[in-house]
C-alpha cells in the first residue's frame, strides 16, 4: 500500500539499519528480590528484514518486545542500554514523546491477541482510534473507512465486520483483525509476539504466510517472537536464540538452522522429531529454565549443557563472531555438531 497517499512515505530504504538495540539490561523488582530478566541484549534490524526471537517461556523475549515499545511492567527497571529507532534513543524519550512513536513507527501483535479487543466497542472504531491519533492530517471518516476496508481485504476478513463487535468474530478472524490494526498507521516495524500460538495448525499456517506476504509487499521490518522454532524458520531472515535473558546465538536463519553454534540452539532444533525426515536419536533438553532471581554463575546455560566445563561455571562467555556475522556466546561453540540428515554427527 505504498501509494503516493500513504501518510508515512518516509520509510528508510531497505537494508539500512532501522532498529539498533545495544546492551539492553532490564530487571524486575519483586518482593523476593530482583529478577534479572534481560541481560546485554543487542541486535541490529534493517528496514524490510524479519528477525525471529526464539526461546523457552521466561527467557525474556516478551520482555524485550515490551521494552521496545516502552510498555514494560510497573516493576521493571532499565539498568542500562539503548534502543535506537532511526538513530533516536527510545529509552531517553519522555512519555509524551514515546506515545507518538507507538503504533505509527512500531506496532505490535500481542500474544493471545484475541483478547486484545475492547469488548464494548466496535472493531472499526477501535482501529480508527489509532489512526485518528497518529495520522496527520487526520483522515476524514470516509477516507479512514476506505483504508480500513483495504486493510481488512489485505488480511482476509470481510470488511463488513468493521461495524461488528469483537465477540462476533471467530478466533482466527480476531487475530487477522489485530494484524490489520497493527498495519493501520503504516508502521516501519511490527512486533509479532506468538501471533499464532492459540490457533489451530491450519489457521496458523494461513496467518503466517499472510504475514510474510504483507511484510514483503509493504517492505516493513518484523520481529517475530515464538517458542516454536519451526514457525520462526518459515518467516524470518535472521534468528536470535534467547536463553535466561541473554541472546546466546544470532545469525541468519539458514546458518543457525544448518549449523547451530550454541548447545542450546542445537538441542532446541533436535528436540522435535521430523515427520518427513529420517528417524534420528532425539537429544532432549534436561532440567528446567533457571530461576532468574538467582541465575547460575558464569554461562547461564551450564547446568543443562552437555558440553559444560569448569570454565563455563566460572566465566560468562563473550559474544563472538564465528564467521559472516554469525554471533554466539559459548566457550565451546566449535564442539557443537552439525545437524545432518543422519542425525547426530
Amino acid at each position, binding site marked *: 500500500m505504498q501509494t503516493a497517499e500513504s501518510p508515512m512515505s518516509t520509510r528508510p530504504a531497505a537494508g539500512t539499519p532501522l532498529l539498533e538495540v545495544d546492551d539492553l539490561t532490564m530487571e524486575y523488582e519483586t518482593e523476593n528480590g530482583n529478577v534479572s530478566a534481560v541481560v546485554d541484549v543487542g541486535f541490529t534490524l534493517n528496514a524490510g528484514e524479519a528477525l525471529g526471537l526464539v526461546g523457552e517461556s521466561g527467557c525474556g523475549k516478551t520482555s524485550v518486545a515490551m521494552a521496545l515499545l516502552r510498555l514494560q511492567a510497573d516493576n521493571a527497571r532499565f539498568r542500562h542500554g539503548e534502543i535506537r529507532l532511526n538513530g533516536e534513543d527510545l529509552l531517553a524519550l519522555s512519555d509524551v514523546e514515546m506515545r507518538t512513536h507507538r503504533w505509527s513507527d512500531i506496532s505490535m501483535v500481542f500474544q493471545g491477541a484475541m483478547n486484545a479487543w475492547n469488548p464494548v466497542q466496535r472493531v472499526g472504531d477501535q482501529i480508527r482510534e489509532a489512526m485518528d491519533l497518529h495520522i496527520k492530517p487526520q483522515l476524514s471518516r470516509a477516507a479512514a473507512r476506505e483504508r480500513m476496508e483495504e486493510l481488512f481485504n489485505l488480511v482476509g476478513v470481510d470488511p463488513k465486520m468493521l461495524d461488528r463487535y469483537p465477540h462476533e468474530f471467530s478466533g482466527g478472524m480476531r487475530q487477522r483483525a489485530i494484524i490489520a490494526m497493527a498495519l493501520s498507521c503504516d508502521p516501519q516495524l511490527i512486533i509479532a509476539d506468538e501471533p499464532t500460538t492459540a490457533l489451530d495448525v491450519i489457521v496458523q499456517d494461513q496467518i503466517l504466510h499472510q504475514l510474510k506476504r504483507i511484510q514483503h509487499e509493504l517492505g516493513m521490518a518484523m520481529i517475530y517472537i515464538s517458542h516454536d522454532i519451526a514457525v520462526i524458520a518459515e518467516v524470518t531472515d535472521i534468528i536470535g536464540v534467547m536463553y535466561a535473558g541473554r541472546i546466546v546465538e544470532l545469525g541468519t536463519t539458514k546458518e543457525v538452522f544448518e549449523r547451530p553454534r550454541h548447545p542450546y540452539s542445537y538441542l532446541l532444533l533436535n528436540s522435535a522429531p521430523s515427520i518427513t525426515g*529420517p*528417524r*534420528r*536419536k532425539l537429544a532432549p533438553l534436561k532440567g528446567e529454565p533457571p530461576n532468574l532471581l538467582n541465575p547460575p554463575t558464569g554461562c547461564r546455560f551450564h547446568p543443562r549443557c552437555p558440553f559444560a566445563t569448569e570454565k563455563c561455571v566460572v566465566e560468562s562467555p563473550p559474544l563472538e563472531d564465528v564467521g559472516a556475522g554469525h554471533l554466539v556466546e559459548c566457550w565451546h561453540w566449535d564442539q557443537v555438531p552439525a545437524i545432518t540428515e543422519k542425525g547426530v554427527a
Partner: protein
Amino acid sequence: MTERVDLEEPAAPGIELPQAPGGGPVVQEPLWRIRLRLLWKASRRNWRLFARNKIGLVGLGIILTFAVVALIHPVLMDRVWDPAIYHPVKGYDAPVAEYTVVEEVTDEFSELTLQEAQIRSNPFVRVGDVLSIAQQPAPPSRTHWLGTDPLGRDVLSQLMFSTRAAFLLGGIAAFVTVFIATTVGSIAAYYGGWIDSALMRFADLVLLVPLIPVLIVVGALFSLTLPLLGVLIGVLSGFGGTAIVLKSQALSVTVKPFVDAARVAGGSNRHIIFRHIIPNVVPLSFLYMMFTVTEAISLEATLSFLGLMNVQMSWGLMINVAHSQGYLLSGTSFWWLLIPAGMAVTLLAAAFFLAGRAMDEVVNPRLRRR
C-alpha cells in the same frame, strides 16, 4: 541403518508394593489421623494467608474483643455489680444532683426551666430556687462509666448485655443462610434444567424485594423475637443472593471430572451432592456467613431502633429509647445515649465485613496478591 531405539523394560505384570518388615502395607496410620493432620496443615496455611491482610486481622480482633465482652458481662453481673442498679433492663439508679431553676437553660445538667421544675419537684418552686433532683438520664460518672439512660439504667451494662444478643442473632442468621444457600445452590447446579431456572428466578425475586419495608410490615403483624428474626433473615438471605453465588461455585465443582467418576462408579445423586459437591462449596459459604452476620446485626439494630422488635435489650433499642423520649433531637448534650450504642453496631458489623473480605482472599485464590 537406522538405530533401533529401545524403550525401557516394561514393568513386570505383578506390580509389587513396598513391604513393611513383617508384611502388610507400609502406611500404618488410620485414615482419620491422616485427615486430621491434613486439616491442621491446611488451617495453618489458610491462617497465614488470612493474616497477611492486616485489615482482616483488625476485624478479627474486634470480633474477639466483643466476644470477650459478651462473656464477661454475666460474670460482672454475678460478682461485681449490684443487679438492682446495674441490670440492663430492670436496674435503676438516678444520682441526685443540684439544679437551679432559671428562665433559660444553658446547661442541661444543672439548670431547669420553671415549668420542668414544677413538674419534677413541686408546683410552688420559683426562679432562683436550688433543688435536689434525680438525674435521669445521668451523664457519665465514676459509678456509671457511660452514664444512665432515660429510665435510669446503666448504659455500659446495656451495651455489654446487647453484645450477647448480637452474636446470637448473627449466629442463627448465618447458620440458616449457609444451610439453605448451600443446599439450594448445590441442587440447582447439580440438576440443572428447570430446577435450576426456577430456583434462580426465585432467588432473583428475593433479591429484588427490599428487606426493610418487608420486615417493618412483618414486625407490625407478628411479634419479632430475636430467633425469629434470625431465621427470617437466614431464609431470605439463603434463597437470595447467597444462593446464586454458591450455585456458581457448585457448578464449577459439578463439571469437574471426579463427579463424573463418582457417577460412573454408581454413586446416587444424593450421595454425590452430599459427599462431593457440598463439601467443596462449604468453604465459600463460610465466607458468606460473615457477610450475613454483618447484615443481620445492622438489620436487627435498625428494626429495634424503629421499635418493631420484641427484644429485651439491644443496641438499636438503646437508641430507640433515647430517641423516642426526645433526648436525641434536642441538641447534642446527651451524647452517651447515642455514640456508644451506634458505635458498637458499626464496629461489630464492620468487623465481620472486614474479616469476611480478608477471608475472601483465602478462599478465592484469584484475589491473592503475589
